[in-house]
């Protein structure tokens, strides 16, 4: 058994859900929405995905259902945003709600609290011609299912999307919503679509955990991967080109922490490695004043920008009315 191949393999598998979450965070952030509800979307995707896969016996349907579940939460956020709900607060609520809802449903209907294992086959690994027969490559590609390839493909597609007209519009909406609205772009619809797409992608990331990689669901299966995805997107400065390496930092940190448990290293120390990586990443991001400004801006915008396009920016009837 080749240790290097094995390490790379587990690193890639651990990177995948983080990459899905990071892409979801990046799309939301670039559309001008600080989306802290990704954790709930990942968990909902994992839960709904395995339920549907078990019920239908079709893993593909499970993944699609997971995407829909995430998209639905995204839609809920967009709708709440439109009526003036603060998305940061809503996201905190959603994260707790989805976690407790899955626990409740497992306890009530699935006969247990800890683990739900319906006995489905996890999604098969992709067989790459020739490579899968070579010793090193076969180990490297072991258990890498289509969702893994989808995650990395999405990262590339995202970079290309930002060069299309529609992608340019999304960037304009996120950076200068007033300018975008003045140019006739529909700010509300763009942000709604971004939230829905981000939800679907995060949901697929959840399905990768339950249906894709393990074949069962456990309580709090997302285990902060949504938050780490947000951190990875920040570390990538919300640029598609950096999103894969940024997600890989966390995926491989997790892989290293698992690997070190085989040696005589205290487990609570090794488990700290991914969290430590997140901390270091946030410090690095924080040191960049420019991106700190962006984060602060996103934070402010999350509670101030309305999804509805504003016709005029400064001249409300009220200000005009003040008699001089």
């Amino acid at each position, binding site marked *: 058994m080749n240790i290097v191949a094995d390490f790379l393999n587990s690193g890639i598998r651990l990177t995948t859900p983080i990459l899905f979450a990071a892409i979801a965070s990046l799309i939301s952030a670039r559309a001008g929405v600080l989306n802290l509800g990704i954790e709930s979307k990942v968990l909902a995707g994992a839960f709904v995905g395995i339920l549907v896969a078990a019920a239908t016996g079709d893993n593909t349907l499970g993944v699609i259902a997971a995407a829909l579940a995430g998209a639905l939460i995204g839609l809920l956020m967009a709708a709440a945003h439109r009526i003036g709900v603060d998305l940061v607060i809503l996201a905190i609520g959603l994260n707790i709600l989805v976690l407790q809802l899955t626990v409740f449903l497992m306890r009530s209907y699935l006969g247990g609290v800890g683990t739900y294992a319906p006995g489905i086959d996890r999604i098969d690994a992709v067989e790459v011609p020739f490579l899968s027969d070579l010793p090193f490559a076969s180990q490297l590609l072991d258990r890498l299912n289509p969702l893994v390839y989808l995650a990395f493909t999405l990262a590339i597609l995202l970079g*290309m999307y930002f*060069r*299309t*007209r529609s*992608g*340019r*519009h999304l*960037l*304009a909406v996120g*950076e*200068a919503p*007033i*300018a*975008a609205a*003045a*140019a*006739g*772009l529909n700010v509300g619809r763009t942000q709604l679509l971004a939230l829905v797409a981000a939800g679907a992608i995060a949901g697929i990331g959840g399905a990768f955990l339950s249906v894709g990689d393990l074949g069962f669901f456990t309580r709090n299966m997302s285990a902060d991967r949504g938050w780490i995805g947000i951190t990875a997107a920040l570390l990538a400065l919300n640029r598609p080109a950096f999103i894969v390496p940024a997600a890989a930092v966390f995926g491989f940190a997790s892989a290293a922490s698992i690997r070190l448990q085989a040696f005589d290293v205290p487990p609570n120390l090794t488990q700290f490695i991914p969290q430590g990586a997140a901390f270091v990443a946030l410090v690095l991001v924080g040191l960049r*004043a*420019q991106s*700190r*400004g962006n984060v602060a801006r996103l934070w402010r915008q999350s509670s101030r920008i309305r999804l509805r396009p504003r*016709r*005029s*920016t*400064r*001249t409300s*009837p*009220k200000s*005009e*009315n*003040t*008699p*001089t």
Partner: protein
Amino acid sequence: MTPTSGETPRLEIRGLRKYFAASGVLAVDDVSLEVGAGEVVALIGENGTGKTTLMNLLFGVHQPDAGEVFIDGARADISSQQDAISHGLGMVHQHFELVPSFTVAQNVLLGREPSRRGFYDDAAAERQVAALIADSNLDLDPHRRVADLPVGAQQRVEILKALAADARLLILDEPTAVLTPAEADDLVAMVRRLAATGRSVVFISHKLPEVQAVADRIVVMRRGRVVGDVARGGASDAELARLMVGRDVLLTAEPGDGTAGDTLLEVAGAMASPSADGSTGLADVGLSVRAGEIVGIAGVSGNGQDELVEAVAGLRRLEAGRISVAGIELTGSSPAAMRAAGVAHIAADRMHVGLNLQATLEENAVSTSFRSRRFSRAGIIRRRARRQFAEQVIADYEVRGAAPARVVESLSGGNLQKIVVGRELSGNPRVVLANQPTRGLDVGSIEFVHRALSKARSEGSAVLLVSAELDEVLALADRIAVMYDGKLLGPFDRSEMDRERVGQLMAGGVEKNL
């Protein structure tokens, strides 16, 4: 009053009227107006006279209660900004609506980008925009990022955006408020060139000299009505000011008698680093202000003026340098210590720093002095003294529509500033820091603030006046300095300075060129 009689006007407004029920204000009252093709019409008036509402009616932000709009002879029903744009109207706001990280071309064509095989086509966009730039005689590089451009160029991008949408009538809302004098001159020349291509321009302003320079016709509004419509050169500045305000206005403040006394404020070697929030910092700034004089600091906003004023007010720590008031060194003192030493501060941001809008007038009036014996005893506020003082401020400074116990939020900018000025100038301060004291005020209030500052000077205060309005500095100051990029140039004696010299320094012209 159609200048090009016989032709169809580009824009015709008939009997437009808008009443805001919520506040009970008739903002636009039966306004009729015509703008001919290729004509530049200046729309002037004090704040809150309905200029902006009128333009918002044109742009579909509000719906008129009565009246009609015709564009090129055809009736136009405008219910949204997009409607207005498709009717050939273009508007350039005071606050630009640009995407900072996009290039000039990307901003101009936002929403109309050319694409090739599904992807945004940068080369085609830059070609299109370059053609448009050449066609309209604007000086811009389509390839530059907007965030890297100076303010004047960003404004040209906004104008170009309107032209790219085929605007035949361009509305410029207070376009020179953010420009240096040289940039403002360029803008005036550019507007004339645009008019020469047959496009019409409505130029909203309250600065009379530039209005006289740019407009074919000047329309004056007061209290929602059109009260004057004069051709270029048909009225003097004083006549226009009288139309705007409804009474005679003293346009030039009287200069000091030139008898300055002891140095009351001394700043030496003040240093502050530039910071990420856009501050330019201070680079070895030294300055002294004597009793009975006004030292004016001109310059485009954001070149270190705020840092200097805040340092003297005790609101900002210097990295190096000394500040002394009346010979006593107070470097690094708290705002309270600075005030105790006799420093009064008319803050640039009256809404957030100068006043607490949610507090009552009397609370605001004593907010810098409530700890004094006069207003409190053993930690308890002396309400009667406070009330008397507030009433005195209202009377002396003509704060209209105000009551001592009412929250000040609903007062207009001019009246808010009178409260600040009244509070700061009462009690004979040694040093008066006036940072942009007339920004956003109407002519009547500006005149009032100018008189108050002149009075403080004649009563022996050392006044440091910071203003982005060159005319204000030239009118009031005995000595003039210019701040550029954190450096202080001067002060020079008033008699050595004229508009051109100050303007050149403001734009970063080096001292030795003078």
